């Protein structure tokens, strides 16, 4: 089983969870996901996911100019994002319990 395949299904909720802790810009979110154990996560996948969650209304965004380089685009979670995250947490908890039971029983 390929972990990167599994990751595709849960990247949304992982990104939402990371941004909920603290607002973050693209690479900052990537770094925190990797630090959290998702080492294989691709930059572009995360940036695209951030963009999609923003379009779906789950995130806010704002640009922070930089003194010494190009500006950074920060993302923060909003009420809708929190609600989505709560639902997905429950879904994941149920799903992982189910899978654990299945795998341990055999």
């Amino acid at each position, binding site marked *: 089983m390929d972990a990167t395949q599994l990751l595709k299904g849960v990247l949304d909720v992982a990104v939402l969870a990371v941004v909920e802790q603290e607002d973050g810009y693209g*690479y900052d979110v990537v770094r925190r996901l990797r630090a959290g154990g998702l080492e294989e996560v691709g930059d572009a996948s995360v*940036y*695209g996911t951030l*963009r*999609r969650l923003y*379009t779906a209304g789950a995130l806010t965004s704002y640009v922070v100019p930089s003194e010494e*380089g190009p500006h950074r*685009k920060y993302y923060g979670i909003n009420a809708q994002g929190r609600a989505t995250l709560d639902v997905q947490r429950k879904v994941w908890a149920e799903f992982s319990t189910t899978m654990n039971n299945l795998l341990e029983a055999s």
Partner: protein
Amino acid sequence: MTTSTVAPEIAKFAAAVREALADLPEEERDELTDGLEADLSESLAEDLRRTLPDPIAYAAELRAAAGLPARARKRGAFAGLAQSGRDTLADVRIAIRRNPALAAALDFATTLRPLWWVIRAWVASWVLAAFFGMERGYWFDGAWWIVFAAFLVVSVQWGRGRWLGKGVPTLILVGNVIAVLALLPIRAATDNGGSGGDGSFDRGYSAGADSVLNDPATKGLMFNGKPLKNIYVYGADGKPLHQVQLFDQAGHPLDPFSHAPGEDQPCADDGCTSLIQAARLETGRSAFNVFPLSLIRGKWDNEQAATIPMPGAQPQEPKGPFLKVPAVLDTKKVSKSNH
């Protein structure tokens, strides 16, 4: 404005990513790539071993994660056709993958792809040669190989996914179909050129290249594509004539062998047991256009490395196929008008 400290390779990479997203609405593209330079700079600064990925693949990943459709293709008549062809191919590939035996065959065929790149370049250079009606000759030898080498480079680069400009994939699809269709007649043509019939391209090729000078099929007298060895002449009365000199419309002697002075005497049969003996004219020159041509017994001479006339043998006129043929009906009329 901020003084930009973006490294040139990052700026170039970001531009390539934006180019790959060029089909999206401008606003969408800007949203998707906003902050890209900052993220990349930081990412590269943090891990010095990291190299920039392929911008096209990067853009595709970005697009897929953002839930946007894959790059829309420009829809011309051919592009649409090519796209549906590709879709069908993809479906077939999935079906093949479900069957282990077919999947193994597909893998085997896939490893042979470079061979196909060579073949299609080879076919293309032959098609080009045929298009310009090139005669096979010494100059053709060099020119063909240069064209082939150029086509080969392009074909392999295309095969490796390089040099793919706008519309080139469609061009390749159409070209591949033409190459396959052209393959059979070209094979046949080169086999003919080979004359040995062993199918060896190189031998067939060199045989074709010097055929202008040496191929017996291109000189001398032919009847229905086969070389003539002799001509038997019968008069209006149906009786055989002897020592008849024949010329073409331009006054050239009809020499069945296009015999050049100094050449070996032509053989009269496959085993070369006898030779064609030229007649001698009053000018002292020998003539091969005096029919029926006489034969003389030959023997192999080691010194000259050729078959030479047997010493003491006399030239003899071979027996014709008929002692007498039916006479022409209006013999008298002809003889009258001749007077």
